């Protein structure tokens, strides 16, 4: 039995143009038919056919970007407004934590406001009287409850609003991004209250940007994107996919800037006209390209597991850096090098064929070099790649400094640079639940499988 059933729900908002804003009853009557003028000039689809069900007693999280329709959906479930089409069925009493303390009257006391707020949420005066002390002590406002609400600090105001809403004791609780209402201690109290809700088999629908909260609390998650359900299921899977997508958008933006930089520097053109001068101090070097161009790097690709060019990699994924080289004359002194730098400019890894023991090299015409990393064990972050061809003594043929960007995502946010494959084991009297091994397949310790 589902506590909430949402069937193919669409919600279209009206967007009035300039004309409508200044329209009045008079103009409506003059232009013939007030009703006709009530029709909007433009419409905006906040939800474009959303369906899902939430089992009674489960905690359900909805994530999505700003403007994806989360709050609209929550309002429909709360019964504030009706869907343009489709049905929303909610079984049991609903309490919505959409805006805390909405409806508090500043002039009257906290006590009166608690009663009125509770009755607005559907309780009787007697039910409120029974809950009153619990509400006040939960909000920690015993000393101020008889003062007018206008004298409250914003934190006190929010706490009181939260306390009332949560003590309505609904069968279905709707929460919209309101947990950031108090200090640490109060937030913990709120989370404990949610946990208690779950234990008592109540349904909680949570809309939040705090993804951590979703993975910690929810049994199910739904990812809303542009008014449509993008994905639904296990919270961890949803959050990972969502993060990857958000990072992907960032990656596309990075790719755009990277290709800009590359084309600015003449990479990819068969013959580059001018090369920038080699900077005198490499440690201060910014992105750029220099060298004699006797051997030229004409193309650089970062390839993912499927050998498709990519900018976004998960920590632990394989990466292949592929260089296309062109020698304008026959050379017998050739070193190919690669370096990876993090956002702070720290070299995470650097190598070249000479360091690794190449004894002789020569090149003429065109050729390809592939530098494959089996596991990109870096922590979450944005990295820049250097590629270069030069002589053994370091004189560059073609040096591409920080021209290529790769984004590494990881579902856990460890610090540092290097993310070794690892696992936690506990024995004896220690129980720590939730960690153990790296969670996702890509970062699973290969020695364990």
């Amino acid at each position, binding site marked *: 039995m589902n506590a909430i059933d949402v069937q193919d729900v669409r919600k279209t908002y009206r967007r009035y143009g300039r004309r409508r804003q200044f329209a009045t009853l008079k103009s409506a009557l003059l232009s013939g038919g007030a009703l006709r003028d009530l029709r909007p000039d433009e419409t905006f689809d906040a939800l474009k056919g959303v369906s899902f069900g939430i089992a009674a007693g489960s905690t359900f999280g909805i994530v999505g970007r700003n403007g994806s329709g989360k709050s609209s959906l929550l309002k429909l479930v709360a*019964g504030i*407004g009706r869907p343009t089409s489709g049905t929303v069925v909610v079984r049991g009493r609903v309490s*919505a934590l959409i*805006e805390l303390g909405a*409806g508090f009257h500043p002039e009257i006391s906290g006590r009166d406001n608690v009663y009125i707020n509770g009755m607005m949420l559907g309780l009787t*005066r007697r039910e409120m009287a029974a809950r009153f002390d619990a509400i006040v002590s939960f909000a920690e406002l015993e000393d101020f409850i008889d003062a007018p609400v206008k004298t409250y600090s914003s934190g006190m105001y929010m706490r009181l609003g939260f306390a009332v809403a949560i003590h309505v004791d609904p069968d279905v609780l709707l929460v919209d991004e309101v947990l950031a209402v108090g200090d640490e201690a109060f937030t913990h109290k709120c989370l404990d209250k949610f946990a208690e809700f779950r234990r008592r088999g109540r349904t909680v629908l949570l809309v939040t940007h705090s993804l951590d909260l979703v993975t910690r609390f929810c049994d199910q998650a739904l990812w809303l994107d542009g008014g449509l359900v993008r994905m639904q299921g296990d919270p961890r899977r949803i959050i990972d996919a969502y993060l990857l997508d958000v990072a992907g958008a960032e990656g596309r933006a990075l790719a755009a800037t990277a290709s800009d930089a590359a084309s600015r520097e003449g990479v990819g053109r068969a013959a580059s006209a001018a090369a920038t001068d080699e900077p005198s101090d490499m440690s201060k070097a910014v992105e750029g390209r220099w060298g004699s161009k006797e051997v030229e790097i004409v193309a650089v690709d970062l390839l993912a597991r499927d050998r498709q060019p990519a900018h976004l990699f998960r920590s632990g994924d394989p990466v292949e850096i592929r260089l296309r080289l062109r020698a304008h004359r026959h050379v017998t002194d050739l070193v190919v090098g690669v370096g990876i730098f993090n956002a702070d400019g720290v070299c995470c890894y650097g190598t070249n064929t000479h360091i690794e023991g190449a004894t002789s090299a020569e090149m003429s015409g065109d050729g390809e070099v592939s530098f494959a990393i089996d596991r990109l064990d870096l922590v979450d972050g944005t990295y820049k790649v250097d590629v270069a061809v030069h002589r053994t003594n370091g004189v560059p043929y073609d040096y591409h400094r920080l021209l290529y960007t790769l984004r590494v995502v990881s579902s856990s946010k460890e610090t540092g640079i290097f993310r070794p494959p690892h696992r936690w084991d506990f024995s004896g009297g220690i129980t720590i639940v939730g960690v153990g091994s790296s969670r996702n397949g890509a970062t699973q310790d290969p020695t364990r499988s």
Partner: protein
Amino acid sequence: MLLSLRHVVRYRGLVASLVARELKARYRGSVLGFFWSFVNPLLLLLVYTFVFTVVLPGAHPSELEPFALFMFCGILPWTWFSSSLLESSTVLITSGNLIRKVLFPAEVLPIVTVLAGSVHFCLGLPILAAFLLYYRVPVTPTDLLWFPVVVLVQLTLTLGLALLLSALTVHFRDVRDLLSNLLTLWFFGTPIIYALSQVPPQVRQILNLNPMTHLVVSYQEVLFTPGPFTRWLPLLAVGAGSLFVFIVGYFVFDRLRDTLAEEV
């Protein structure tokens, strides 16, 4: 619509608390507090007494003496009527945040406005009674039985109009400006500062179409005019009409309900 009405009945505790809050908040911080509810009509009565006994004596027939008291019988219910309509026409907009964020029947708000007005009306009654006694106006006791009926009819009419206007104002903001002008005309089109008997017969026909005419005249007959209450037939007709206005008002409100949260 019936379902929505039942919903409102379920929220009667809220309505009562909100009315109490409205009154409490209004006089919060003022030294005289509730006493202002008495002072306002009292001052009004004193001013009218001054104008019509000192400045303009004899501007009205002798059977309307004391004239200030006669006027007061009409002004008190009129104030309730007009202030309720004016306030309820904007109540949904000023409480917009509440309607957008909390699920509760929005009709509670105009209803509370009208009921709070009725409390002020009731607080004016002791003043009226005191002056009736002071001037030894002969009130027929059986007439007083009609008094609650008149109040009830006026309440129904006011509620119906308040619901209609509050929902319409959300869509057409100029309803309130239209209304404030209309109410001025309406005031003079109602026999409050003159008696219906003073009006030429042709004009009286027109005034008879105004439901407030019958209500105000009923107040005057019950409280002021000697002799038994005779106008119960038009009163009951207005009562039936008021019920119709209420149903229409509520129906319109119910139809526009879903658009309120988006438009306020």
